[in-house]
């Protein structure tokens, strides 16, 4: 039993998982303009300052996303992906009121539509700035016709990654056997 738990914990997140993890961090940056500062502060509060003492160290890990302009080869060790997942979950907790506003149907529909529009605009700007535009997946993200549903799913994923059970839920989904 112990062996099974150890092998599950040491499973490495694949290419597609790293893409999603970085996209979630990008979404956090789109939701909160001061997110890059907040991430370092949250990392410090959450005991992750050894891995992410500054923005550069965090950026180095995020560059393992194969869609980035300046990408780094290879997969991240599980200790580092676990730290990134924890960071995403802590940030999701912090931003939960904001995420909830986007998902709620009780908010005025006009204001909700404006919020989604602003979020989509910010995310596309960040994608264009940091991702490789020659990749098909990036072109798809930037294309406003195909990114609407993707963005909605990403926001819902972030919402469900918050709270006490969010970490294990997100980790399991990043380990999905995607093609």
């Amino acid at each position, binding site marked *: 039993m112990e062996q099974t738990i150890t092998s599950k914990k040491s499973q490495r997140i694949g290419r597609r998982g790293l893409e999603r993890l970085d996209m979630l961090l990008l979404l956090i940056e789109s939701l909160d303009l001061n997110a890059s500062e907040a991430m370092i502060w949250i990392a410090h509060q959450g005991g992750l300052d050894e891995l992410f003492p500054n923005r550069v160290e965090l950026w180095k890990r995020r560059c393992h996303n194969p869609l980035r302009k300046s990408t780094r080869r290879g997969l991240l060790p599980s200790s580092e992906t676990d730290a990134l997942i924890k960071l995403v979950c802590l940030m999701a907790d912090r931003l939960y009121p904001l995420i909830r506003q986007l998902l*709620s149907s009780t908010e005025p529909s006009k204001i909700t539509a404006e919020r989604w529009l602003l979020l989509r605009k910010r995310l596309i700007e960040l994608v264009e700035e940091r991702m490789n535009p020659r990749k098909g997946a990036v072109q798809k993200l930037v294309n406003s016709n195909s990114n609407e549903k993707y963005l909605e799913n990403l926001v819902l994923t972030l919402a469900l990654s918050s709270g*006490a059970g969010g970490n294990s*839920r997100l980790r*399991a*989904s990043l380990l999905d056997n995607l093609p």
Partner: protein
Amino acid sequence: MKQSIRYNYTSVRLEIDGLPDLSIGQLGESIGIISSWRLEIVGLTQLEGKRDHLETLMQVVIPYARHLVSNVRQTFGTSTSSVQIYPLTDGHKLYLRSSKPDIQPMTLKLDDAQLTDLVRCLDSLRMDTRVIVHWAIPEDVPLQRHQLEDKSPILESITPPALGSLLFLTFALLLILLPAPRINPPLIEPLPDKSKI
């Protein structure tokens, strides 16, 4: 002796009452035996029941949320079970059947925000160290390829190499059909036969 714990997340409020299980040495503020619970979804309804009902609700809602994170929208719970949840185009539907024969089934339509509030509430309960109860809830595990909804990437990943191979074969066939260049024999004059001289 009776303990009460409340979990509160914007639109969902869950309150459980219970006692520490003294037979296994639980003391203080812990709850080992849940006697009752109340779940209030603001603007929709208030539910209450015994521990088994709460466990059934968790067995359906927690895996549903896990699958949503992987973008898999599927129904959890059967048409005969006491709790069933299924996706709608603009939300989620929770179907509750009472064990009492005279009570009609109840249907609740939740939006994404209400669902995440409910999931956070149930997560807080099952992770709470003060509630020492074994919940029979499936573990969060990675989904296999056949469980994932989005099948398009397979087609997308097959198309470019298939097109490439087809183009390569077409050009190879065209090149084979081209006539081979005629090679003329070298124009070298034969040397005079020395024996005849």
